[in-house]
């Protein structure tokens, strides 16, 4: 399903002037606070009427100034707000079924049970919102949006009001959602770990404008990406190949093999891993007798000095990697484009299991 957005809107000193088209199943709208991300969500949901603009979801035109404006209640785009916005006078169950009761096509009982199951809401149904923790509220808000059977799910920093512990409690639910349903999602966030875990595609917004856009694999590892793009680091999808007798798990990816500490997933499972730029060292010769489990032969695609460090773009098979080293190291090694090097991987972060 495609999402087409073109907006021109002025609010005091702030000018929103942007356009993007995405076909990703999970698209992240990434940018600092105050960049205008929530306004974009509001415009897509129909809660804001732009001065000028066009918004279409799956080819269905929802906003086209000056004539077309489908009201929010007819858009079938469910929003998960940062502050959950549960109805305080209803039990959790009635909150969950609020959108379901009004949906033209209703999810069946099995689907309701499934959503309640994956979000672990079974024990909360009789509770009132003020008796819920922040994490529980976020889960109920997510379930309520899902059960409305929307054509697209708009998530407006659903985890931003939660502390780190709560966030890591909810992220797996979102991950399962991204994996198990084929519902298109637009996910607003300024947290790179959330984006790397969930998104297929990233749209970077700064000061009301789109500054970069691309698949998560390319953009997060692109040394040429403009400032404001999340901290660099390769994101790659790998497949569990084998569980070795020495306790390590072999992950195959387009470019080689990564060894990670035992991963309790059957062979064939797709996982997503992150190699942060800071976690890749470079060596001109293949290092031996080294504690690192992963040494990947690569070629240098580009070198970009940024302040007192240097970002080195690497190609490893069909995969784009990036290493951040000091300027001094780059000079000492006399790195050049096209050169063959070895990337020593200090740490692999498994971003999404399965």
């Amino acid at each position, binding site marked *: 399903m495609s999402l087409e957005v073109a907006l021109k809107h002025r609010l005091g000193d702030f000018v929103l002037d942007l356009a993007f088209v995405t076909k990703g199943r999970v698209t992240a709208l990434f940018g600092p606070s105050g960049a205008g991300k929530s306004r974009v969500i509001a415009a897509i949901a129909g809660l804001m009427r732009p001065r000028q603009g066009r918004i279409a979801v799956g080819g269905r035109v929802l906003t086209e100034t000056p004539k077309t404006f489908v009201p929010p209640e007819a858009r079938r*785009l*469910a929003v998960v707000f940062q502050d959950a916005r549960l109805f305080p006078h209803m039990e959790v169950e009635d909150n969950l079924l609020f959108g379901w009761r009004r949906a033209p096509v209703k999810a069946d009982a099995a689907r309701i049970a499934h959503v309640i199951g994956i979000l672990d809401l079974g024990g909360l149904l009789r509770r009132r919102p003020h008796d819920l923790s922040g994490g529980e509220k976020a889960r109920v808000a997510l379930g309520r949006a899902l059960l409305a059977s929307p054509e697209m799910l708009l998530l407006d920093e659903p985890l931003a009001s939660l502390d780190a512990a709560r966030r890591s409690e909810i992220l797996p639910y979102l991950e399962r959602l991204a994996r198990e349903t084929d519902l298109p999602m637009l996910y607003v966030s300024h947290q790179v770990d959330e984006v790397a875990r969930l998104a297929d595609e990233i749209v970077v917004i700064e000061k009301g404008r789109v500054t970069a856009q691309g698949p998560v694999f390319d953009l997060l590892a692109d040394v040429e990406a403009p400032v404001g793009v999340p901290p660099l680091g390769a994101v790659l999808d790998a497949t569990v190949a084998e569980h070795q007798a020495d306790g390590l798990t072999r992950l195959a990816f387009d470019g080689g093999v990564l060894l990670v500490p035992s991963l309790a997933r059957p062979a064939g499972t797709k996982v997503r891993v992150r190699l942060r730029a800071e976690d890749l060292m470079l060596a001109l010769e293949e290092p031996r007798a080294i504690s690192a489990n992963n040494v990947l032969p690569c070629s240098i695609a580009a070198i970009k000095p940024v302040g007192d460090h240097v970002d080195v773009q690497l190609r490893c098979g069909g995969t784009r990697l990036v290493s951040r080293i000091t300027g001094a190291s780059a000079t000492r090694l006399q790195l050049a484009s096209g050169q063959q090097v070895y990337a020593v991987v200090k740490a692999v972060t498994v971003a999404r299991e399965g």
Partner: protein
Amino acid sequence: MMTGFLSPAETTALILSLQVSAVAVAAALPFAVLMALLVARHRFPGAGVVDAVVHLPLVLPPVAVGYLLLVVFGGRGPVGAWLWEMFGIRFVFSWTGAALASALITFPLQVRAIRLALEATDAGLGEAARTLGAGWWDRLCTITLPLALPGIVSGAITAFAASLGEFGAIITFVSNIPGETQTLPLAIYAALQAPGGEVVAARLCIVSIVLALVFVTAGNLVARRLWR
């Protein structure tokens, strides 16, 4: 209990008072909700004027309100004459006229309480309901009014209590007729006019105080019990 304490005539005044107040509050309630929705949710030119007009009965001398009612709804008043000819409805010298006067006087109290409750509810909840498919009427019935319910109930109770004490507008508009328009305050007044009526007046005063305390306390209790 009442029959032992109060004479049959006094009991009649008490029951009539409760009846007039109940009808006044119930009849004014839907209009109060509409007016509160209008002033709480919309910024329109003339909003200040509308607000001032709504509050007028609260600050105007009740006698003046009664007189204006007489001019408009009296037997020869434009509305009064029309109602009598078309429908045979008459407000003057009737308990329904007393209810009309009470409704008008206590209308601002209801509007105010409902408006405050509406303004205190989070507009974001309405937005959330919209994105979940709820239209205007739907949201009014399932989100807006239920969330404002404590305000609506406390406004109604306060208006009821205030209506029990209404004197000037009623006596001016519908006169002081025992069994028809003589509510508690009018009965107290009548008793004080008669020689040796102090005891009756004192008894009715005690009844008024008890009623006022009960309803004002109830109103406060409900107002405090907000959702969340």
